[in-house]
């Protein structure tokens, strides 16, 4: 089959104003020297942008979705199961897609040489996990509820407990790194990273839901967190398919 004279590519909807944080946010001091001051230039969605890496099973090890395993003993803290779906903005599941997480331990300490918070390191917890979504876009991690920790952003600053999530979607346009927060955290009001999201409803989408149905008796609590990456605009291809 010869190449079409003009490429017809899927296009991705740009997210509404307020969905994502501004690059310059006074409350979060580290943005001061790191935000571009020139305006961003609109990049049309061409071949490079509508495709993306398909990072499959080759990246996953045996215990990568269970952060409580792989060590001599059990990690300290509250065991939790985190489940959810990776969806696009049209509600379609994104299958066989890499989901990566990293987090602090139960005492709010990261296994990183740069973390000087004098809460103990846990020899049985590294705080990194990976998994692939299944045919319905579902993922599951078993881990430990991370603790809150202080940082030096402002006077008496504390980060709410959170788990970092990284997803690829199925196109370069959909790449997303976010943080999952826990319900009713008393630290939200003073956290500039959480509050950098202008739209209150969008902010709420970063808070997991307590999931009693998925708790395991005498073993683990459970939280549910869906991640949504942007959707596609209706394409010429789909219109044609609808006519068949």
């Amino acid at each position, binding site marked *: 089959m010869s190449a079409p004279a003009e490429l017809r590519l899927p296009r991705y909807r740009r997210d509404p104003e307020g969905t994502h944080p501004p*690059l310059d946010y006074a409350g979060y001091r580290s943005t001061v*020297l790191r935000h571009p001051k*020139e305006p961003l*230039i609109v990049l049309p969605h061409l071949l490079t942008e509508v495709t993306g890496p398909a990072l499959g099973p080759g990246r996953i090890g045996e215990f990568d979705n269970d952060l409580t395993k792989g060590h001599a003993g059990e990690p300290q803290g509250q065991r939790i199961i985190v489940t959810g779906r990776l969806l696009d903005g049209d509600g379609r599941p994104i299958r066989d897609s890499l989901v990566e997480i990293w987090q602090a331990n139960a005492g709010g300490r990261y296994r990183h040489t*740069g973390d000087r918070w004098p809460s103990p390191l846990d020899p049985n917890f590294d705080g990194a996990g990976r998994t692939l979504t299944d045919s319905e876009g579902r993922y599951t991690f078993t881990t430990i509820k991370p603790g809150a920790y202080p940082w030096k952003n402002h006077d008496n600053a504390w980060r709410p407990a959170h788990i970092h999530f990284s997803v690829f979607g199925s196109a370069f346009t959909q790449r997303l790194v976010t943080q999952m927060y826990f319900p009713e955290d008393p630290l939200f009001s003073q956290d500039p990273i959480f509050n950098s999201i202008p739209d209150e409803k969008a902010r709420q989408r970063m808070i997991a839901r307590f999931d009693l149905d998925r708790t395991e008796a005498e073993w683990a609590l459970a939280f549910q967190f869906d991640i949504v990456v942007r959707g596609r605009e209706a394409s010429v291809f789909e219109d044609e398919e609808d006519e068949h």
Partner: protein
Amino acid sequence: MPETTPSQTVGPYLSIGLPWPDGPDVVPADEPAAVRIHGRVLDGAGEPVPDAMIETWQADAGGRFDHPDDPRGPVASGFRGFGRCPTDPGGNYEIRTIMPGSLPGPADSTQAPHIDVSVFARGLLHRVVTRIYFEDNDNSGDPVLASVPEARRGTLVATKAGDGYRFDIRLQGEGETVFFDV
């Protein structure tokens, strides 16, 4: 319909969860045409950013993507096309890749060989996106470069350096890299 989950910073400890030992290798170790692209990520004071990570995405030498949304049909190259490298304490990154091919653009135009780049870092609440072009290619007909003010186009062009190319990323200030709204 579900609405998009907001972006958040990777924070200072992204190296716990994101980098891979083979992340900088876009092509296999025995690839004869491999080139090295290296550079630094710098902040508005010209200081290196040691807690950043770059990710790259590109076509193969024939300008093809191994992806179902490439309407020119599938390729079975085994070429990963994706690179990922955290910055070191000096703000340095590097990837090992091949020169991508030219690509069709809108309205019968041709895109010059390029690599899409995402930059993540502490202090970046949302990734920033740029493109790498190469000084020894003909970039004159590229529709994306043409949309960039002429005085700033140079920030998107990697220069020949040793066994590869140099591409510095300046997040702010003099010579600020062009970043795109994707």
